[in-house]
């Protein structure tokens, strides 16, 4: 049995990472949201599987939270925002897709090279999980800096948080309160982002950061 537990959680973690890559090359906002939903679903499944495999019921709560917030509420809300604000649906990458993918692969390599030697004493599952979640975090950051659209920056931020949750469920004994607080802080951040998006849009008629920056009246 332990083998299956390991393989399954490894698989789910890898799916989360794969979705991070998928987020990187999306050119349309709706497909971006869809991929993000898929990532949240994979994450929620990973949490639930960990809870089942290790007999830790509080992980089910985590899974449920992730499912409701990340896979249902936030994508729907963002979807609504996009429709309501009539945002241009295409994403303008600041960095070309090919380069972004190359950078992403190097980041995954870096995190594996980094995590595996450091955690030599930990169990194989923890090590793999940490490497995967660090990769997800770094890819989320990469996404935030390689896209000009404000919505895609929000999605990048959310996927960073997914990476953190992935790390939290992988490490045995992480108390529920930590996950709860992370989840709620992301919730708050999401609300703030939402409000900001409305205001930015109202004021500047665009969510393209490049346009907005010119309003600061500063030299670039």
């Amino acid at each position, binding site marked *: 049995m332990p083998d299956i537990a390991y393989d399954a959680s490894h698989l789910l973690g890898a799916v989360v990472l794969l979705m991070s890559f998928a987020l990187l090359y999306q050119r349309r906002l709706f497909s971006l949201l869809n991929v993000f939903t898929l990532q949240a679903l994979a994450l929620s499944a990973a949490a639930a599987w960990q809870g089942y495999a290790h007999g830790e019921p509080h992980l089910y709560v985590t899974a449920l939270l992730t499912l409701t917030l990340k896979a249902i509420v936030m994508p729907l809300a963002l979807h609504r925002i996009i429709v309501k604000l009539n945002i241009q649906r295409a994403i303008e990458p600041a960095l070309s897709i090919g380069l972004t993918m190359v950078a992403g692969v190097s980041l995954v390599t*870096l995190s594996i090279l980094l995590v595996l030697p450091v955690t030599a004493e930990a169990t194989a599952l923890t090590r793999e999980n940490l490497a995967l979640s660090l990769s997800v975090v770094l890819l989320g*950051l990469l996404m935030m*800096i390689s896209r*000009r659209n404000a919505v895609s920056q929000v999605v990048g931020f959310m996927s960073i948080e997914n990476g953190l949750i992935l790390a939290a469920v992988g490490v045995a004994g992480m108390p529920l309160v930590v996950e709860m607080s992370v989840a709620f802080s992301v919730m708050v951040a999401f609300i703030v982002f939402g409000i900001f998006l409305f205001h930015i849009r109202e004021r500047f008629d665009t969510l393209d950061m490049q346009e907005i920056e010119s309003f600061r009246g*500063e030299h670039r």
Partner: protein
Amino acid sequence: MALVVTAIALLLLLAAAGLATARSSRAHAEALVYGGTGVVCGLAALWAVAHLAGGGGTETLVLPVGLPWLSAHLRVDSLSAFFLLVINFGGATASLFGWGYGNAHRDPGAGPVLPLFPLFLAGMNLVLIADDAFVFLVSWEFMSLASWLLVLSTHREAETPRAARVYLVMASFGTACLLLAFGLLAGAHGDYSFTAIRAHAPEAGAAAAGVLLVLVGAGSKAGVVPLHVWLPLAHPAAPSHVSALMSGVMTKVAIYAIIRVTFDLIGQPQWWWGGILLAFGALTAVMGVLYALMQDDMKRLLAYSTVENIGAIVIALGLALVFKASSVPVIAALAMSAALLHVVNHSLFKTLLFYGAGSVLAATHTRDLGRMGGLIHRMPATAFLMLIGAAAISALPPLNGFVGEWLLFQAILNAPALPQWALKIGIAVVGAALALATALAAACFVRLYGTAFLGRPRSAAAAQAHETNRAMTLGMAVPAALCVVIGVLPTPLIRLFEPATRLLVEAGPFDDRALQPWIRLAPTSAIGNSYNGLVMLVTIAILSVLLVLVIHRWASARVRRSEPWGCGFADPDPQAVSQYTASSFAQPIRRAFGSTVFAAKDHVDMPEPGDTRPARLTVTMIDPAWGWLFRPVGRAVDRAADVINRLQFLTIRRYLTLMFLALVVLLVMVAVTQR
């Protein structure tokens, strides 16, 4: 030990009292603060004398203050006790003088001096008893900031803001250097108590870097050229008794820091450290006095003269260091005694001269030598005491300045005992530079004294000057008397601080401390020379009396004839503007040295014939340290700031990119280093 800590606590209390009473009656507040500070400092100085006379043992104290896991380590040994004596004696006379000065020279624009004065003294005392790097640096910064605030207390004068700004920058720079130095000396094991630094001598590279940083950090506080630029700006800007403390006493705290690190903490020194001290000491001495000669501002002249004296002390320290490194402890003890004696001497005559400048300032409301003159008739007591100070700082026998220079030259003349050829030749050059500096110092003080006190008054204020009050005169008389006493009988003092010499270079200046006659100074038999101040005094007294008799008998009684046109000097001229001025006196030296060293330019603006405006001579010069060091550094900082300023106007995405890149670089570093 407990007494010193109590004294510091009392000083802090007095500072609080000064703050509390600042709004109430000024006279009472001054009596309380200056009286209290004077008594506390006097008692602390007496305690230091008793401690040194009792052999100068080591006492330690650990106070549970500061960061939770670190307590404050305090320690008094013979070296600290010696410097405690110097500082607290200076503090006591400054309190006495300051009390009178506050009455005589009411400056409506002056800020609060009362609470800061005891605070400044407390800071200096704390530096001396610190026994770990934390206490040392905190109290060092405490001292710097207190003195900075004191400089700012005259903030309404035009020059003060710039002086305070330059001082703040240099003080921060010095503290930063000291911080790095202690970090290097403590090494990786991270125990910053001086005991631990002494026990684990750092490796050669770290020790050398640490010593260099201390020389830069403490040297900037002491006023070593080229880091002296703040000193002639900040010292004169403060009220006169504070100027005296900053110039005569605070620079000694910096000397203490140099001695503590290079002679005590670091173990066996390298000879080239002494070489650096010698070279910069000689540069400091010559440049300081040359610049002092060019000044028309009395207090600024004194500040530059401090730079010169610091140069002499640094030369003595360098000599002690090279002799110690070359294992010639007897001569090292001689040089160290010269350094410590000069520390005492300079603290005495420099405070005396600054008090004198303060008296003149209170009487004439000017620091400009060109507006003084003839003050000897108006202020006879001040003039007499200033004469003692000027003679002492010019190293004239039988005053204390001469004894210090004599000891120093004994050490310099023994340079052939060193094995390094570079030093044998170099020290001879340094000796020549020191002799030049001493001669120029004499010229400088002839100029100061002659212009300010002799001749005819050059302004109405100088003509109407009147003698200052008793407290100020007494404040000057005490150091003046000591200048004479130490000059005539130096041996008891040198014997008093012999334990400090023994602590630092493992030898004393005398063959046998107990057998040393107190009446003449006969240091170690290795040099075979001795100095008898009493004989000198008697000889000079007899010769002077004879000379006075001869002049009165054969010269004064004669009918004298004078020129009908004395170079335009009209006797009843109330302003006496055609007198020889301070600038005229300095002109030959300005011509000889100034045009190259200071880029001095004389510009004569001569009106056309028939034009009635006066001719005007303008002299411009610049301190080379500004042109060669500080302006280029300032420009480089400006350029760097311009470049970095662009970072302030990046887009959010670029900021995120920078953070991201920094994170990735750090992760790569971890990944690379751990394998």
